[in-house]
């Protein structure tokens, strides 16, 4: 038993910390958040690719560096402290892992190196109008036309689609059972991507209007993509959880610091039990998210059956991030809701990621199956 990070991981951690401190200061992130016209890709993407982050979760034979998921999670925990926005997770972790699990050798060779180099940016177009992350939430159907397919329908709240060069679209095929995966050029004729505004980051409406997809862009077997898709998602989820852990951690750090500086009634507020209790609740959420996440990563990296742990990590970290931000706001009171201060960046992110890749409710239902409470 050894719950510490190894030397590689410490190096990743330090490099990411430097990046966040430099390129992603609170000031810059607040500006990104408030100004709709600032381009996240232009701001970070080149640097991220140059640091090799776009290839970390991809095996060496496909142009990546073949790091463990834990290595990748260490990176994302630190990015979460920003919270640094952008499609790094969607493209280089989530879609990369799905392609690894589902793609043909030719597809992997064609696509993964481009993801690893940062040339292509993938997003997963999964959720639809009746929002959900199970196989049976997929209602969109592709129509087979000769060797090609034609896609029509709406994908909704698609994370990071606004940044994507390629979409990985989940859909059934008319007349057949199961779900299939299609690679679709984000700029293809008939695809329209519209970023949705609100108290959330980077979620889009993606409309497919008779989009022609070549048969060679069918990823995995027709109607048989679910197993690989699910496996890829299960591997990617704890990395997203680590990003949330990073968010909780930073909210905790900011809040502890503020409670140690802000004076009311002649003393710093951190001396008041009630303020302390908010901080205690906060750290309890942080640590619950942290250790459920890291156990899941360890199980995945060591080839064990990790499903239960992944479901637990996602269920816990989604709730924890939400609550950690709430307690952060309790500690800060007024200043916390001033946009310039930066706390609301995390609050928004915690809400935005709550449902991505499945809300706690969904993962608890999956856990019921793992616990054999239901067939």
């Amino acid at each position, binding site marked *: 038993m050894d719950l510490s990070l190894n030397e590689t991981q410490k190096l990743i951690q330090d490099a990411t910390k430097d990046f966040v401190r430099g390129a992603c200061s609170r000031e810059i992130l607040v500006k990104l958040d*408030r100004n709709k016209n600032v381009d996240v890709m232009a701001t970070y993407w080149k640097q991220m690719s140059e640091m090799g982050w776009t290839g970390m979760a991809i095996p060496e034979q496909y142009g990546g560096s073949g790091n463990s998921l834990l290595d990748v999670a260490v990176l994302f925990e630190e990015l979460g402290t920003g919270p640094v926005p952008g499609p790094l997770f969607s493209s280089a972790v989530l879609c990369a892992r799905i392609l690894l699990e589902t793609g043909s050798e030719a597809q992997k060779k064609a696509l993964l190196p481009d993801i690893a180099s940062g040339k292509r940016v993938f997003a997963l177009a999964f959720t639809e*109008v*009746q*929002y959900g992350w199970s196989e049976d939430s997929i209602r969109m159907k592709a129509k087979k036309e000769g060797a090609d397919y034609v896609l029509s329908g709406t994908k*909704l*709240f698609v994370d990071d689609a606004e940044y994507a060069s390629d979409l990985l679209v989940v859909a059934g095929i008319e007349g057949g059972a199961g779900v299939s995966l299609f690679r679709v050029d984000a700029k293809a004729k008939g695809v329209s991507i519209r970023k*949705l*505004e*609100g*108290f*959330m980051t980077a*979620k889009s*409406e993606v409309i497919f209007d008779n989009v022609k997809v070549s048969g060679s862009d069918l990823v995995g077997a027709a109607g048989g993509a679910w197993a690989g898709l699910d496996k890829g998602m299960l591997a990617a989820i704890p990395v997203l959880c680590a990003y949330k852990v990073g968010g909780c951690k930073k909210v905790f750090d900011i809040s502890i610091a503020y409670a140690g500086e802000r*004076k*009311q*009634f*002649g003393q710093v*507020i951190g001396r*008041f039990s*009630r*303020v302390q209790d908010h901080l205690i609740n906060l750290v309890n959420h942080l640590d619950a998210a942290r250790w459920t996440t890291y156990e899941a990563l360890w199980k995945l990296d060591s080839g064990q059956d990790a499903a239960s742990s992944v479901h637990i990590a996602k269920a816990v970290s989604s709730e924890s991030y*939400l609550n950690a*931000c*709430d307690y952060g*706001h*309790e500690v800060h*009171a*007024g200043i*916390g*809701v*001033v*946009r*310039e201060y930066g706390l*609301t960046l995390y*609050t928004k992110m915690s*809400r*935005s990621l*709550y*449902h991505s890749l499945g*809300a*706690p*409710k969904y993962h608890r239902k999956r856990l019921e199956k793992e616990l054999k409470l239901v067939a």
Partner: protein
Amino acid sequence: MDFAIEDSPEQTEFRKEVRAFLETAVPPGITHTVDAANQPREQYELRRDLGRKLGAKGWLYPHMPKEYGGSDMSSDEVMILNDELTRIGLALPPYYDSGGRMGGPSILVWGTEEQKKRLLTPIFRGEVRTWQLLSEPGAGSDLAGIKTTAIRDGDHYVVNGQKMWVGSAHGAERSWMIVVTDPKGERHKNLSWIMVDMSLPGITVTPMETLATGGEGGAGGGCKNTVFFDNVRIPAENLVGGENNGWKVATTHLEVEHGGTGRLQDRRVIGEFIDYCREKHNGFAIADDPDAREQIAEMFIEGEVMRLFAVRNHWLSHTNQPRSYEGAQYSLRRKLGSLDISERMLRIAGPYALTTDERWAPLQGAIEYFQRDGITSLHPGATTDIQKVIMARRMGTGGREREQAGKLR
């Protein structure tokens, strides 16, 4: 026991009268935005117009004494008036007027006869709109720690300093504020309460950019401002309650702010959200999902508890029952309950709860606004921690005497 807001024959008559009045008095063109901060100027002016008409009739602050512009109205009648305004999506007063709603009752206790006539009447008649200026950068929960000074100079006070979290958009004609009149004096004994004309030279109002926009309800509320005072000269006759006696006035004021009076018809968004869940949108109804249903029921129950605490407080304050912890209890519940309800909505509606998109947002974005408002509402009118401090004191914990709430009219 009678929870009913049931009309007696006289009350039925009164309701008719109110409805008839509103039919002609409400200016055409009043619409509702989900996000109070974005209420355009013309909407605010329409509400002010209605406010002036209500004020002229004594119905803007109807429970206030007739002699100062109110109507000495009974609580049941006030409820009818409120009810009828709520029916058309408005409140009483129909715009954000914290200085009237909260300052009014305090001045009634602490003002001289002359001051009540001069200062309260225009507020109660809807002629002026007033803000309250309390918090400062270094003084939030600890209001007694303010630094803004008002130094006597002849028959004026000269004010210097900075107030923040001051509502709302579109300005106010006057403001109540708490100031330090004795910079060397003992804590709590160095403060005074004064009314300031906002058009005086030396006052600068700068909007703050926050996550949501106030969370104090009332049309036209919204953005908060920072207000700077640079050698502003205020007539000494506007000081209320005596020099260096401001903490006592503030205590009365805060009693109202801390939920002592109970707000009925709070959180309409709950009912509207449930309606939304019941209806089919985009081909499906949220309530078709049994998990969503259970959460909707839980959310509804939390809303009912909040409502019942408000009903009880309304009854306590309007029948002059002894009150102790109930005001703070309601405030605490409203703050934490609203946050809880907003998060349940997020769980129930998924990312739909987070968008303002024209095509996809439920209730024109009201749920998205509530997500932000649930957080922003945690601090105004005293944080949850302060509400607990008040509750504990009032309940008589630690062998103390149970403390009664400040007397209000």
